[in-house]
């Protein structure tokens, strides 16, 4: 087993709550984590946390952006019903079937705990059992009188999943928001490894906002940082029964390195060759157009950025028991650190030469 430098940090990040547009609480944890590596940290207008770690390249140093979104999928209160029950809409894609009986946190004037209701089997007809309720039919119970609910909760208040993180076999971790705080942990592992390597390039570590509603933070981060190489770190799908083979990555078999139109061929080759050279396990992820990651926004920022996408596979994405392997986080961090250490000014100049 490799060293787990930032596993505790990851557990701390997972315990935070922050959906699209309300990432402040998580951002503050991220700033603390980044401050171990640099004091050059800023936050842009949308809320992206941007930290710079300098290489030895001086003013002409290549710049490589490592970006991981810190927002998690969330719900928004749309109505307070009679009895004080809350109706919600989604901010990020939920499978409503995963929400029945789910515990949640309501971020209102006070932080409230709630349960998404389910009908007792004693009262459920066989006919009803064949149906899965759409999100509109679900409600949150905060076990409070309607009057008090109305005094505390407003339409527009945000709701996030409640789940204590669990450690499973084989250094696997399960809980909420592994999408995409595991990638923040990858950035931290990368910076840790880089301390033991010589690197010409400046590294700009970004924790981006609002990915789950359409890579909005990524667009302003890429514009603001304007790096030579932009690497989006995001989770992908781990295998489970009933999934297509090209969307089924193995847990513990190393990060998935993306290849396809969204990915600069030289960035892909650089990541792949680095892994081969250093004996780091990796898997190949193929995409046929813009990826569902911040990398989709990076590629078309300003005059276009050389983009790479990498990340670990997790199971059960977008629910409260997302499951991933810390071993993959460590492998991914090592891979990125060696890749960054390999990049020179000449490499950057070659990115526009076809």
């Amino acid at each position, binding site marked *: 087993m490799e060293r787990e430098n930032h596993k505790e940090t990851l557990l701390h990040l997972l315990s935070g709550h922050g959906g699209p547009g309300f990432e402040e609480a998580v951002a503050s944890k991220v700033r603390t984590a980044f401050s171990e590596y640099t004091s050059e940290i800023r936050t842009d207008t949308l809320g992206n946390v941007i930290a710079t770690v300098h290489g030895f390249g001086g003013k002409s140093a290549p710049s490589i952006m490592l970006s991981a979104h810190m927002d998690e999928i969330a719900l928004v209160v749309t109505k307070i*019903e*009679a*009895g004080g*029950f809350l109706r919600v809409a989604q901010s990020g*894609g939920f*499978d*409503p*079937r995963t*929400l*029945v*009986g*789910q*515990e949640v946190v309501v971020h209102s004037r006070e932080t*409230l*705990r*709630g*349960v998404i*209701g*389910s*009908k*007792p089997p*004693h*009262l*459920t007809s066989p006919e009803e059992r*064949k*149906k*899965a309720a759409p999100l509109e039919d679900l*409600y949150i*119970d*905060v*076990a*409070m*009188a309607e009057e008090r609910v109305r005094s505390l909760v407003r339409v527009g208040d945000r709701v996030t999943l409640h*789940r*204590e993180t*669990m*450690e*499973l*076999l*084989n250094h*696997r971790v*399960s809980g909420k928001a592994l999408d995409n705080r595991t990638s923040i942990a990858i950035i931290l592992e990368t910076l840790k490894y880089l301390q033991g390597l010589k690197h010409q390039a400046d590294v700009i570590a970004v924790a981006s906002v609002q990915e789950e509603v359409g890579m909005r933070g990524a667009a302003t981060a890429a514009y603001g940082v304007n790096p030579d190489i932009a690497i989006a770190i995001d989770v992908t*799908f781990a*295998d*489970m*029964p*009933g*999934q*297509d083979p090209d*969307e089924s990555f193995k847990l513990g078999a190393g990060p998935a390195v993306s290849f396809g139109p969204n990915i600069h061929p030289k960035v892909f080759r650089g990541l792949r060759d680095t892994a081969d050279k250093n004996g780091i396990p990796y898997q190949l992820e193929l995409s046929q157009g813009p990826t*569902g990651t911040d990398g989709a926004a990076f590629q078309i920022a300003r005059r276009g950025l050389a983009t790479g996408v990498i990340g670990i596979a997790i*199971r*059960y*994405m*977008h*629910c*409260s*028991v*997302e*499951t991933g392997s810390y071993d993959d986080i460590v492998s991914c961090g090592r891979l990125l650190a060696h890749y960054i250490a390999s990049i020179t000014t000449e490499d950057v100049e070659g990115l526009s030469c076809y």
Partner: protein
Amino acid sequence: MLLKTLTEAMGPSGFEDEIRNLIREEVSPHVAKMYTDVLGSLYCENTVQTGPRIMLDAHMDEVGLMIVHIEENGLLRFKPIGGIDPRVLVSKPVQIGTEKRFGVIGAKPIHLQSPDERTKPLGINQLYIDIGAKDKKDAEQVVKLGDVCVFATRYEELGDNCAKAKSFDDRVGCAILIETLKKQFQVPLVGAFTVQEEVGLRGATAAGYRVQPDIAIALEGTVCFDVVGAPSHGQSTVLGGGPALTVQDSQTIADRAFLEFMISVAEKHNIPYQLRRVKGGSNDFGAIHKTRDGVIGGGISVPVRYIHAPAQIISLEDYQNAILLTEAIVRAISEGGFTI
């Protein structure tokens, strides 16, 4: 905190060891005589010989899951023990076996589903427990077939004097019974913590026969569905409305005289109560009242929202009132308030 200890303990039907040991430890300083029967139910008796013999019942078991198969990829297949709607299992963690190893029940990510898939519930045969095992061999090191699981839910207080936990059905009844057994009564009293209620009132059937009570009362957590959109007649009970008394359920038609007696005691002591308003569901009294020559009695229930689901909610006021009502009824009987 009694409710926390009891609800966080493990005890699916037929596997009540942990919860039984906890209850035994809790009541042993307060009761004269304690023993278990061949099914595993736990009995606590006082030494009073004169007066009607009262049996207070609470079942120790809870709904759970059993591991029935290990897939080549290390995922575990399971079947429910007791009535669980598979729709509440998706995206929930469980604790497996005596080691309480964490496992999670996941689902295919929404990104890879067709819109049609989302409208269909996932059945038990489409769900797996993931313990992080690499393959079958890896899983077999730590889990064996027949291991049982319970929901991994913490007891926590929330809202207006309410609490959330797994297994309020029937650990809330166990807590009421424990609190009652800590008090002294001048009437023969048997507390029966029974097994296997969730798979057909099985422990109570043997317990009723063995105890031969004159009067029996089941202490339960019962169906409560007083939520948005639920018609009044379908709610069964109202959270915070006081302990619920059974009129008729799927196994019992309340003895009218005893029901009236319980109501009169509640009213005399200004303890709020409500009548349980659905016919479905049942409790241990359904089995007890049919033992031997028949037994007079009833049920006192605490309303439980989301019963049989991972996160259930009760009102702590209802719980306290159920304790008060149970004590008041036993005292009233000991004072000759109810003649059989």
